[in-house]
């Protein structure tokens, strides 16, 4: 039993990779080959689908737009969550528990519920179809998550650290930036990773809040699927490219994923 234990994760990972292999395989096929019948690997290997994406601005700007609002959202979420997480981990104040739960309820709000009101709100304040609008809207679920993770990490830092710094005469902000932030650097990395992840994969709000200027890649894909016929190869190539930023981010936090999960409690 023990000896074959490795089979479980191995089989699971094989199951994970199969659809990804199929997506990659499709992306290197011509439309004729795809529609012509079943082939296990590309017979007429082509890079045409990728060439189209990298030369057509409506395609590659989708990636730029998505990455832009994801980065803005990640920076914004982590920045505002840091002091709040400190307050939750160190102080008791009026309504703190209720506030903490209220924040979490926003993580539970279905995007479908908010799609239409969000559209009206951001149109009314003139931010519709900007990267800022999507970045702000994603704060709805990313800020609570970041607060939750950072609070977990900060609670792991001994309070003596704060007290010593204050005895040494550090002003609050200096203590915060020079001592606390370096002490929970891993936690900040993990929080940023989760914000990046949830902002990158979300589509419903991003699509509702944009039309042309800030259109995310995911929306470009769905619109292409419905307008220019069913170009499976092109869609597969676009899909395959959306995996890259995620894989890139995972590589950087790979040593913190498990640690982050347990300490950060998410």
């Amino acid at each position, binding site marked *: 039993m023990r000896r074959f234990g490795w089979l479980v994760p191995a089989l*699971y990972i094989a199951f994970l990779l199969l659809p*990804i292999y199929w997506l990659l395989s499709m992306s290197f096929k011509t439309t004729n080959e795809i*529609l012509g019948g*079943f082939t296990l690997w590309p017979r007429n290997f082509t890079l045409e689908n990728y060439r189209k994406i990298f030369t057509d601005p409506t395609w590659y700007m989708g990636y730029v737009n998505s990455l832009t609002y994801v980065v803005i959202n990640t920076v914004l979420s982590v920045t*505002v969550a840091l002091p709040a997480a400190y307050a939750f981990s160190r102080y008791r104040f009026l309504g703190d528990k209720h506030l903490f739960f209220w924040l979490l309820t926003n993580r*539970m709000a279905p995007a479908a519920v908010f799609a*239409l*009101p969000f559209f009206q709100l951001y149109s009314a304040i003139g931010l519709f179809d900007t990267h800022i609008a999507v970045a702000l809207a994603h704060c709805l679920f990313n800020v609570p998550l970041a607060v939750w993770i950072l609070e977990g990490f900060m609670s792991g830092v001994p309070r003596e650290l704060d007290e010593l710094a204050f005895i040494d005469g550090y002003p609050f902000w200096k203590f915060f930036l020079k001592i606390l932030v370096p002490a929970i650097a891993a936690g900040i990395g993990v929080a940023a990773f989760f914000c990046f992840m949830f902002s990158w994969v979300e589509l419903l709000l991003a699509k509702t809040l944009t039309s042309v200027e800030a259109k995310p890649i995911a929306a470009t894909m769905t619109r292409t699927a419905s307008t220019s016929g069913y170009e499976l190869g092109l869609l597969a190539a676009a899909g395959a490219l959306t*995996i890259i930023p995620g894989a890139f981010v995972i590589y950087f936090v790979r040593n913190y994923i498990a640690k982050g999960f347990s300490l950060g409690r998410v």
Partner: protein
Amino acid sequence: MRARTVNQKGWWLVLPVVVLVGFNAVIPLMTVVNYSVQETFGNNRFFFEGVKWFDTVMHSPRFHDALMRQLLFTGIILAIEVPLGVAIALAMPRKGVWASLCLVLMSMPLLIPWNVVGAMWNIFALPDIGLLGWTLNKLGFAYNYTRQPFAAWATLIAMDVWHWTSLVALLAYAGLSAIPDPYYQAAKIDGASAWAVFRHVQLPKMKHVLTIAVLLRFMDSFMIYTEPVVLTGGGPGNATTLLSIDLVKIALGQFDLGPAAAMSLIYFLIILLLSWVFYRVMTLGEESS
């Protein structure tokens, strides 16, 4: 959360968060509440209707069906993903290159945009040219997820298991990594069986992270929208029309703002209530430990 000093200045530190989240949460929520009690005949003229829409939604078979499908879906995926995730975490290597490799590969589905997950499974399961659909049909199963409700459900569940089991596995793995080696040595000296080690050492240590895993999977599966829309579009017929798909159909498709808003609120309240129960269970465990 223990030994915190009372300091009302904490409010200044949480203020940015409250403003930012409040702006995004309170205004849209009030808009929804507003629609849920009014009738409109166009031209931006609204009439107060009281609880009429809530009454309509609560008694509509369409809502009941969508809710039942939603509960069934959430139940099935929790029943599969949680045990599977734990099993994978138990069998994963603890240290070294293989552990890192497992972690990186297993995180991949979590970072793929949801519509791409749907599109990927769509082309993977196509009966004639998809790897899965073609293989199943060659093996003699008449499989077509665009026609058969059962096949559509099976594909949908396979997709969700593919997409999210890693989250449970990663959380369980984190819980397991936090167990110090002496625990295992003590169990070995006592001659404990693998099952006893799991039951009395590993499971109690994983309890906390597993609650989080169940909570997250519950909330997210209850809110699932993009993946099934891209995969099946809610079909065949209404077979896979889950709650939020139905909601978007009513709100953005038919533009029935009143019923859609009432349904939104009921839907949100269900999630809130069930999540609150989970949250209480979780914090109770924290206080007693």
